[in-house]
C-alpha cells in the first residue's frame, strides 16, 4: 500500500490544479454566452420593465465586473461552496445531490451491463473465432456501435411501450405509487430497462470487440501455451490466465469513458424523462443558470478524476507489474 500511498500523494495536488483550471475555463467560457439568466426569466414571464430586470441583475450579482465574479467564484469553490441557483431557488449543492443518484444509478447499471455483456460476448466470439457465432456477435456489435443512442431509445419506446405495452415509456418510478420494499425496487427496475439498454448498447458493442481482440491476443502468448502444456484445457487456460489479462483494457476504458457516458446520459435522460443530472446540465445551459452548470461541470470533473484514479489503483492491483506513473 506504500506504493499506492506515494502515488496518491503525488497525484492529488495535480488533480486539484487540473480541477481548478477546468473551473476557470468553464467560467470564462460560460460567461461568453450571449444573454443571461435575467433575459431568460424576463422572457418567460413577459416582464417588460427595464428597472425590474436591472434589480434582478443586481440581486443575482450579474452586474459585477467579470473578474470580480470569477474571483468570488473561485474563492467559493475553494471553500467547497457551489453557490445558489436563482433559477431553481435552491443551493446548487442540494439541487445536484437531488438529481445525481438517478444518473449514477443509470450509469452504474449501464456500465455494469456493458461490461458483463461485453465480456460474455467477447469471450464467446473469441472462443468460437471465425465461426458463425463469432460473425453474428461481430456484426451485432458493429450495428450497436453505429446506432445513435437516442434513435435506439425512440424506437424502443415505440416497440416496448406502445406496441407491446410491456414497459413504462418514461420516468424513474411510478409516481405517487404506494409500492415499498421489493415492489418499489421492481418498479424502478421496470423503468430502468429501456434507458439502461439504450445507454449501454454502444458500450456493450465496444467492450465485446475489445474483449474478443484481447482474448485472441492473450491466448497466443507464451504462458498460455505453458499453461496448456501443464494440462489445462483450452477453456481452463482461457478462464484462469487469459481472461484476467484480457479484462485489463476494459478496466482502463471504463475509467476513460465515464465522462463520455455522461454525454449519452443527456440524450437518454431526454428521451426517457429520466430525472438525472445530464438533463439538469442541459437545461442549465439554455437557462443561463451558470452557478448550477459550473457546479455540475466541476462535479463531473471530480467524478471523472476520481474514477480514473480508482481505475489506476485497480489496474495496479490486477497487474502488479504495472508501474503507477
Amino acid at each position, binding site marked *: 500500500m506504500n506504493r499506492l500511498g506515494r502515488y496518491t500523494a503525488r497525484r492529488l495536488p495535480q488533480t486539484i490544479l487540473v480541477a481548478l483550471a477546468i473551473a476557470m475555463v468553464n467560467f470564462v467560457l460560460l460567461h461568453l454566452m*450571449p*444573454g443571461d439568466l435575467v433575459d*431568460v426569466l*424576463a422572457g418567460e414571464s413577459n*416582464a*417588460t420593465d427595464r428597472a425590474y430586470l436591472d434589480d434582478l441583475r443586481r440581486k443575482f450579482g450579474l452586474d459585477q465586473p467579470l473578474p470580480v465574479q470569477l474571483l468570488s467564484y473561485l474563492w467559493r469553490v475553494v471553500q467547497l461552496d457551489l453557490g*445558489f441557483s436563482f433559477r431553481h431557488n435552491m443551493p446548487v449543492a442540494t439541487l445536484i445531490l437531488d438529481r445525481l443518484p438517478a444518473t449514477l444509478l443509470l450509469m452504474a447499471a449501464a456500465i455494469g451491463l456493458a461490461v458483463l455483456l461485453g465480456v460474455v460476448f467477447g469471450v464467446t466470439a473469441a472462443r468460437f473465432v471465425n465461426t458463425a457465432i463469432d460473425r453474428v456477435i461481430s456484426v451485432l456489435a458493429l450495428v450497436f456501435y453505429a446506432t445513435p443512442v437516442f434513435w435506439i431509445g425512440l424506437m424502443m419506446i415505440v416497440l416496448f411501450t406502445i406496441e407491446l*405495452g410491456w414497459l413504462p415509456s418514461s*420516468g424513474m418510478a411510478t409516481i405517487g405509487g404506494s409500492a415499498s420494499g421489493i415492489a418499489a425496487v421492481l418498479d424502478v427496475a421496470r423503468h430502468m430497462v429501456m434507458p439502461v439498454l439504450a445507454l449501454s448498447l454502444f458500450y456493450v458493442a465496444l467492450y465485446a470487440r475489445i474483449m474478443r481482440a484481447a482474448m485472441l491476443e492473450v491466448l497466443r502468448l507464451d504462458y498460455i501455451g505453458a499453461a496448456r502444456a501443464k494440462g489445462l484445457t483450452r477453456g481452463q487456460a482461457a478462464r484462469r490466465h487469459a481472461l484476467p489479462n484480457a479484462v485489463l483494457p476494459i478496466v482502463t476504458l471504463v475509467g476513460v469513458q465515464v465522462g463520455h457516458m455522461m454525454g449519452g446520459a443527456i440524450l437518454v435522460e431526454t428521451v426517457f424523462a429520466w430525472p438525472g443530472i445530464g438533463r439538469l446540465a442541459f437545461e442549465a445551459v439554455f437557462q443561463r443558470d451558470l452557478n448550477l452548470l459550473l457546479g455540475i461541470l466541476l462535479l463531473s470533473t471530480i467524478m471523472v478524476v476520481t474514477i480514473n484514479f480508482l481505475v489506476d489503483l485497480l489496474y495496479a492491483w490486477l497487474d502488479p507489474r504495472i508501474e503507477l506513473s
Partner: protein
Amino acid sequence: MPSMSRRNFGWLAAAMVVAAGIWLSSTPTWAQPAAKRGGTLTYVVFPEPPLLTSAVHTAGPTAQVSPKMFDGLVTYDFDFNLKPQLALSWQVGDDGKSIRFNLRPGVKWHDGKDFTSADVAYSLLKVWKVAHGRGRATFANVTDVLTPDANTAILQLSSPAPYIMYALASMESQIVPKHIYDGTDPQTNAANNAPIGTGPFKFVEWKKGSHIILERNPDYWDQPKPYLDRIIFRIIPDAGGRAAALEAKEADLVGMSIVPLNDVKRLEALPYLAVETRGYEYLAIVSYVGFNLEREPFKDVRVRQAFAHAIDRSLVNRLIWFGYGKPATGPIHHGLVKSYSSDVPAYPLDIAKAEQLLDAAGYPRRANGVRFKITHDYLPFGEQFVRLGEYLKQALGRIGVEVEIRNQDYATWAKRVYADRDFDLITFFANNASDPVIGVQRFYWSKNFQPGVAFSNGAKYLSPEMDRLLQIVQAEPDEALRKAAFADMQKLAMTDLPYIPLTHLDMVTLYNKRVRNHTLTADGIHANFADVYLQD
C-alpha cells in the same frame, strides 16, 4: 351581486367580455351532474416550472401548476364576468381611486393559519409591486392597501386603473401568506418551491426533473370540492414522450400544444383520447414575422409588402401548424371581436407582384438571380418555428432573396434581437392577452421601443399616427369610437407592415376522456381544477 359599473371597468372589461363571446354558443360541459370523488389526475407540463407560485414568477408552466394551490381574489366566467373566489364582493369607489374587497371569512392557509386582509395587503405591496414581472406595471397606481379589519382590504389608487380588476385571477396575481413571506426576500423564499396556499390542492412533493405531487385540501372552503384526491404533474422533456405517455394511459392531460402537432389527429382518433382547443381565449396567440426597420432593405415599405406577398399564410397554417389556427389577416386575433377588424389591406400570395415591388424598390435580380441577402432569426420555442424558418427561406428564395437562418437559444436570440439589434428578419409569437392594449400595442407603440426588453417594439416602428390611434384606444370609454380607432390602427399596421402577422393560433389540450370539467372557463387548464373529476 357584486356591483361594479360598466363605466368603471370600461374598455378592458368590454373587450374581455367579447373575447369570450364564442363560449356562449358552445354547450358547457360543467352542466353534467354528479361529479365523482377520488382518483389521481396525471397532468404533463413542460418545461419544468421554475417556481411554484406566480406571485413572483409568471412563467407559463408556473401559471398552469400554481393556481391549483392558490386561489385568486376573483375568477372570471366565460364572458369575463367577475366571480367571487377569495373576495366575496367588491366595490369600486365613484372616483375610481379606491377598490374595496370584502374577503371570504373562515378561509385557512394550508398550514392552518387564517387568511386575512393583511395577506392581501402584503402580497400586493411587497410582492406583486416588487418581484412580479408584470405586476409593477399593473399595480403601479396602487399607493396603499388599507386593512380596517381582517376581512376588508381597500386599495388606494393615485388614479383610476380599471384593468386591475382583470389581473386578479390566481394565475396572474397570487396571494401569498404574509406569515411565511414577511421579512424575507420573496424571490428566494423557500416557500416558492413548496407553497402554502389557500387553494383546493396542497403541495406534497416536488422531485425536480420528474414530478410535482399535490393532494386534496380537505379543508377547502368550497365543499364538496375538490373532487380529485391528487394531481401529479409530470415533467416529460420529449414531445414524442409526452404523446407516448398519453397513448399508454400513463398521463391524462397535456395542454398548450406541447405534443407533436402532426400527431394530434392520430391521437385524437384513439377511443380514449380527445382534443380541446378552447380554454385559451384570453391568450389569443398570434405569430408574426418582424423586420428590422433600421436596416436598409426594410426601410422601404415596398420590400416589406413584397415579403408579405411571397409568404403563403394558409400554407403556413396548414403545413406548419397542422391546421390548428387561422391564417392571419391583421395583427389582432380574430377572437377579440371588440377590436378585431378585417377591413385591412390584404397581401394574397402573388409572386409576380412581389417581384415587381422589389424591382420598383430598386433591388433587381443580379446575375446569380439574387436580389439581396438577409439573415433570419427564429424564436427558438419549439419545432414549428424551425419549420417556419425553413419555409421562409424557400418562399423568399423564390423572389430572389437569399436567407441565412441562424439557430440560437432563447437568451442569445433575445439579446441579439432586442439588445444588440443585430437582425434582419425575425419570427415570434405573442399572446394578444384579453385586450390588444396589453398584448398588441407593445409592438407598435413608439414609446415601447425599449432596447434590452424582449417582446417590445423590436422593429423600431415609429409612427406618430400610430401613436395617436393607440392613445385613443387606451383612454376612449366609448366602445364604438374605440372600435373605430382599432380599425384604423389595424389598417395602418397592415399598410406600414412593420410586422407581417402570420397565424392566429389555436392551442391544443389533449386529454383522456375520463377527465371531466378541465376546461370550464376562458382560462381553461390554468384554472384551479376544483371542479375536475374522473369518470372511468
